[in-house]
């Protein structure tokens, strides 16, 4: 339901049986409100829907001798879903995305809470600037910087050696799953923080005081007043973080070594080995998980909640 239609549905006064002149005009103009959507629709149609459609089609084809053959088959899906390595990699990818999302939210929430409640407005901007600062450098650099931080000659090992705690380099997280996890949380923390900040900034803190005045403990006041109003922001932030992590390729490739492989790495191998149908089937399955997540959380994303 749009804001306009919501207002229309609830706007009729008592005894008002005839639609007002403005309402008639609004209804007549209804189709025009979508015209503004056309450029975005063209953009998404050409650069998102069409390639996605192509990938779906490819996922039902086969390759023979480096040729794509349009012979309908569901074998690619069967292969992905019945090969233990692929299933394991798929499950690990979803789990990694889930855990990294939870951690990013868990870190972002107290940070934003502190920023909004205890930091003067002008300094909040500085805090936010620090959050988005990494975006000023390329994604590639941000990932490879972690190789330098976690590596044998990296910052952590150098510090430990300088402090006399180790004699030689120790492998801390690099080329394994924990390293990938840390880097993913680092990479996507700003998405969570910015979303939560935008919501916390608008929160009416008098509600908290009122709850405490009425006898609630501080934690209960938070749980009963702040968190329900943060639900939409939490879900949005979660989706912003979870979805891109599902398709991550570079972080596991650069940081994870042979232990940190995620589904994106296998898809890349399928594509570079000319196995477009298998790679496409794996990609469609990833997209399916995203679709399911969006379906599950669609109620939380209902914008009418904002105006209640």
């Amino acid at each position, binding site marked *: 339901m749009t804001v306009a239609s919501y207002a229309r549905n609830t706007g009729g006064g008592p005894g008002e049986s005839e639609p007002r002149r403005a309402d008639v005009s609004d209804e007549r103009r209804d189709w025009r409100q979508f015209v*503004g959507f056309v450029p975005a629709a063209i953009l998404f149609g050409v650069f998102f829907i069409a390639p996605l459609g192509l990938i779906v089609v490819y996922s039902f084809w086969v390759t023979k001798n480096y040729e794509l053959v349009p012979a309908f088959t569901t074998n690619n899906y069967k292969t992905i879903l019945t090969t233990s390595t692929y299933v394991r990699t798929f499950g690990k990818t979803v789990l990694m995305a889930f855990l990294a999302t939870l951690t990013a939210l868990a870190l972002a929430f107290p940070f934003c809470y502190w920023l909004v409640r205890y930091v003067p407005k002008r300094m909040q901007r500085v805090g936010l600037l620090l959050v988005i600062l990494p975006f000023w450098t390329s994604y590639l650099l941000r990932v490879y910087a972690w190789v330098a931080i976690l590596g044998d*000659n990296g910052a952590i090992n150098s510090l430990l050696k300088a402090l006399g705690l180790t004699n030689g380099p120790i492998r801390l997280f690099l080329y394994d799953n924990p390293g990938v996890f840390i880097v993913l949380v680092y990479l996507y923390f700003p998405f969570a923080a910015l979303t939560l900040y935008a919501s916390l900034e608008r929160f009416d803190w008098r509600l908290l005081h009122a709850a405490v005045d009425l006898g609630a403990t501080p934690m209960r006041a938070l749980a009963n007043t702040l968190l329900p109003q943060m639900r939409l922001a939490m879900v949005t932030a979660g989706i912003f973080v979870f979805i891109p992590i599902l398709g991550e390729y570079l972080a596991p490739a650069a940081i994870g*070594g042979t232990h940190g492989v995620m589904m994106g790495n296998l898809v890349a191998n399928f594509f570079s080995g*000319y196995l477009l149908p298998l790679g496409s089937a794996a990609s469609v399955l990833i997209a399916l998980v995203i679709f399911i997540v969006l379906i599950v959380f669609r109620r939380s994303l209902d914008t009418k909640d904002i105006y209640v």
Partner: protein
Amino acid sequence: MSRISEVKLSRRSFVGGALMLGAASPLLLSACSSGSNSSGGGSSAGGNVNWLTWSDHYSQDQLAKVADTTKITGQPKLFSDNADAFLQLKQTGSQFDQVSADALWVKKYMSEGLIEPFDLDSISSSSQLYSMARKFDFLNDPKGAIGYPFSWSTVQIYYNPDKLKTPPTSWESLTDPAYKGLIVAENIPTDLMAIAGIATGSKSPYAQTPDQISAASNFLSALKPNVVKLASQNNEIVTMMASGEAAIGISNLGTDVRVKDAGGPELKSAYPPEGTIGFIDSEMITAKGANKPLVKPFLDAMQQSEWIVQNFTTNWRPLFNEEAAKELTADPKTADNAKRLFMDNPEKALQMTLKGPAQDQQAYTETFNKVFGA
């Protein structure tokens, strides 16, 4: 002049403007793209050569100098696996003018009609090549040359003796649990499957039977715990060996010199007694490239011996330019490495199993992914 805040923008004009912008964007992008492509109809006019290649086929200063002298700018796009480049060329049509490939892949490109033959003599720098390199079967066709021979290398084992109690001696020895987390190799599924095939006794590593593929899979499974990382480009192997993050590298000739140049340790090499694979790189002219007339003058400038000398002293694997080999072996600073790394002995290139397309690419990639998945 009116201020921006004073400009009144109606919804109609806003939507109209947005629509026009949306419609015009693809046209503008297309115009920019075709502009850069068509900027050189011939060698005298100059223009761009869009080039699918590896990072060790050029240097930035070389591209800049060649662009200065010929008005032809090489625009490299990198790939790692031959199959990847093959796929890109097949799907993009006229977008690329020149493509690099390993040995037996060249015939595959030709049979698919993706490249066109050319007269090697029409590229004057080809007179600097070893005569045997001009006659490689796989780089020639009845209609002419199909690949300009560039460089070659075997793939062998390099190791840091300071980090290993027992040095590796063969492919099989690399599965020793003592090497856990110490090996780095390039992420090229087809070639690693071929190495696994050689390690398990296959005589045709790029055309393994299902049983041989199964044996290769077992070998890779035993090898996996020892592999710390599959590198996306060869220079990552050099970086990891120089930093000490890997003690064993499955890599090209000259890796020891590159690691030393990068401030790393002294490496030793082991040539696996089971045999090995190797590459003979070449440059090809695409059949549909929008700027393909520029490729020959571009190649001519890029393949001059001065650049080949520079390439050797950067990447330290042999190339087929005889004139460059003479310069390198005559220079006391480079003579030792030039001789040790076979710059003056191109016949060695024919003793290895040449890289090529797998007979059953699907089985190769799937087997590899099943082993190296989570």
